[in-house]
């Protein structure tokens, strides 16, 4: 009477993402699925949801083998996956959303009375206290998540529910309500798989825990007998090494942020010095993206000051901040950085066209020269100026975005990078790290944010741990290890084994 996954394997273009993963969840069990970015959690969830099919291994639900799973088939079997990005329509009412696509009908018309009755029962059952006619867009995110669960609940006999990072954007009180609901579903015998980056939550609601690392299970045991240190060790792979033993030759302060506050973060004070790489480590929803985007001029700060090279900067627009020598490589490449249908040359040189021009006119020779030099420095593959940006691989797209500012290194004082290696292959990742290092050697301060402790440990000379929009710890040099970052982020530092 369980969900059983045995020996699950999956490769993407030759790279083995899952290498024989076993996972079983009994009725009434909350099973936490943990691991660093790229460990294979999402792939495993996609196997359960039927979005992809594993190459080897078997899935059994209630002792019946489940083969050739599709999302529709999974849903019919009672497997509901609640993603972070919800499938609710903001402009429609609560009732309309609950029944979207599965309306109760009377002839050709919607049976509104019946829908309202069922919706009322459902909301009561889930303890969601909202009017049936409320527009979903006006509700807090936590309530929306509960609605999403209720929506899945009334459509199928839910046997397995997968909650993918449900608390990333929830406040503490919303988290508590979600947990109460999880406890209730648990009592009804649902099998619950739960992923999170907040390790503290594991001890609050999970019965058992599985940790994935590099596609393999590194820890699988009941939470009752688990101490936090073992959990951290399993996630970090016991990796207590700080990467480069770098001779910190950081110079004067280039970026001075004083009591800066903005959307979902602050107040934050930090300094970055010439020639250093500063890492910001924080889990999803910790506010690190808002912080970087605000520094880059995307949002206006609500309080605080930013000083670059000793001059106070009015943070009013990206263009204004760039004139002061601060530029951003944003986290969402497709949405925030890439011109997919435009040439590599346009993608790489856009911020430089004005500077390369003679008077009002562009200078093609200069443009080709700068493209060529930057593409070589980045090892852009293929180094083709006319190829469309969207036709490059993820890693090379990221090189184009990073290269935008490399091409302007003479005017650059601070480079901000948000999740610099997301969706990037191993080779490109190494190149991006190398370029960051080279930038510091040429006097630039590099500030990057990552949800990946591994990456922060590998790249940062100094690291700040961010949680709930604040800096909660600072580590330097050899103190920066995957383990110490996880410990500080989850405040296990005072706990003894």
């Amino acid at each position: 009477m369980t969900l059983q996954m045995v020996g699950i394997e999956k490769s993407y273009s030759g790279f083995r993402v899952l290498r024989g993963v076993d996972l079983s969840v009994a009725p009434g069990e909350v099973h936490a699925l943990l691991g660093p970015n790229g460990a294979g959690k999402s792939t495993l969830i996609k196997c359960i949801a039927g979005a992809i099919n594993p190459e080897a291994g078997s899935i059994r639900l209630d002792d019946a083998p489940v083969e050739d799973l599709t999302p529709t088939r999974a849903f019919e079997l009672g497997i509901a996956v609640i993603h972070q990005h919800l499938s609710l329509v903001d402009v429609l009412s609560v009732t309309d959303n609950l029944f979207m696509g599965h309306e109760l009908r009377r002839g050709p018309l919607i049976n509104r009375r019946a829908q309202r009755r069922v919706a009322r029962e459902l909301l009561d059952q889930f303890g969601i206290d909202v009017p049936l006619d409320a527009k979903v867009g006006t509700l807090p995110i936590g309530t929306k998540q509960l609605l999403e669960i209720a929506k899945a609940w009334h459509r199928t006999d839910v046997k397995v529910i997968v909650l993918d990072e449900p608390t990333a954007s929830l406040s503490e009180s919303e988290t508590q309500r979600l947990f109460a609901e999880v406890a209730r579903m648990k009592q009804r015998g649902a099998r619950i798989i739960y992923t999170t980056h907040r390790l503290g939550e594991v001890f609050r609601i999970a019965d058992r825990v599985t940790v994935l690392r590099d596609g393999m299970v590194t820890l699988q045991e009941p939470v009752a007998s688990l101490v936090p240190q073992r959990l951290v060790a399993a996630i970090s792979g016991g990796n207590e090494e700080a990467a480069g033993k770098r001779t910190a030759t950081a110079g004067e302060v280039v970026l001075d942020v004083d009591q800066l506050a903005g959307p979902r973060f602050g107040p934050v004070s930090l300094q970055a010095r010439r020639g250093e790489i500063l890492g910001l480590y924080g889990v999803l929803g910790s506010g690190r993206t808002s912080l970087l985007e605000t520094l880059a001029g995307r949002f206006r700060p609500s309080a605080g000051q930013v000083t670059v090279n000793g001059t106070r900067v009015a943070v009013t627009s990206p263009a204004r901040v760039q004139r002061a020598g601060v530029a951003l490589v944003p986290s969402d490449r497709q949405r925030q950085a890439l011109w997919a249908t435009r040439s590599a040359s346009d993608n790489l040189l856009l911020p430089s066209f004005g500077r390369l021009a003679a008077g009002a006119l562009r200078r093609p020779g200069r443009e080709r020269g700068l493209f060529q030099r930057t593409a070589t420095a980045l090892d852009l593959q293929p180094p083709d100026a006319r190829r469309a940006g969207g036709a490059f691989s993820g890693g090379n797209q990221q090189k184009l975005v990073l290269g935008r500012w490399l091409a302007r290194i003479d005017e650059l004082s601070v480079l901000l990078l948000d999740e610099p290696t997301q969706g990037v292959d191993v080779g490109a990742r190494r190149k991006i790290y190398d370029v960051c290092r080279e930038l510091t050697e040429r006097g630039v301060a590099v500030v990057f944010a990552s949800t990946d402790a591994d990456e922060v440990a590998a790249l940062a000379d100094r690291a700040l741990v961010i949680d709930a929009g604040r800096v909660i710890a600072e580590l330097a040099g050899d103190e920066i290890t995957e383990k110490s970052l996880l410990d500080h982020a989850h405040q296990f530092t005072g706990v003894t084994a």
Partner: protein
Amino acid sequence: MTTTTSTTTSAASASAPAVGAKRDPIAVALRSALLIGLVVLTIFFTAQSNLFLTAGNLKNIALSGAVLMVVAVPQALLVIMGVVDLSVGSVIGLAGVVTGLLIVDHGMAWQLAALIGIAIGAVAGLVNGLLVAFTRLSPIIVTLGTLQLYRGITQFLRSNPPANFGKGMQLLGRGLYLGVPVPVWIALVVFIIGAIVLYGTPSGRYVYAIGVNKEAAFLSGVATRALPLIVYAATGAAAGIGGVLLSAQLDSAPPGTLGVGFELNVLTAVLLGGIAFSGGRGTMFGVLLGVAFLGVLNNGMTLMNVPYYAQEMATGAALIIGAGLDELSQHSQLIRAIGRRR
């Protein structure tokens, strides 16, 4: 910045496949559909009427397309940026009527009156740009509103048409320079300026960047508010020039009808020329083809005594087929994949 010009790169980029699928024969054929259509149409009309391919008639075609070209060039830049100006027909009316009444009612020199008319067009365009930049309203709503607003103002200024503008205006509208009508020269200058802006200046790159991904352009430091604002003002000025030229051709500026419906002709030419209404894609050569195609189509059918309703049907069909083929050319890989499966 000291840059040494590299000469080795041109060879590398010349042998490389271009942006999109320029080398794909299906895409090339689809993309050239308008050019092929224009050639076929020209051959057809030449065969049908011996009046078609004469110097006089070609002059007629060029003259009829001149004002369209003047307005279509900046409109194309707007559409590539993902916005649009639907008010150009009324701006033409406003500028023409203002110029006309300044000459007729106030005895102003025609040159000065024309400059004032064009300046008023620029201001009207600037108002459009400001409303689009600083409200969250869609450009379609804003300029549909000003389309009516500007027409109302025009009719408030004068109810019956000012006319008989004198010799200077007549020369501007119908005079020849080196055998070519003056408005055609003006259209040529506007076209060249448009091509230089789009291909020869950094702002041209910003136009595409805004159209393809506005957020990325903003984060990269592009002036995503100021640039559309400037192009809206330029479009207004161009419509102002169009208004002056049209009233010069007519020697009259009827407040209720001058430029009415012109915005639709401009949009038809621009979209027919392969500029995507969703922004981010299009060329100046496409605009030239779009304008030429419409001019040849209408002129040829008039010569053949095709009734006006049939001309409208043909223009409508050409737009849908032309835009459809262009859309297909964007998915040529898809077409190939389907072909392979069979």
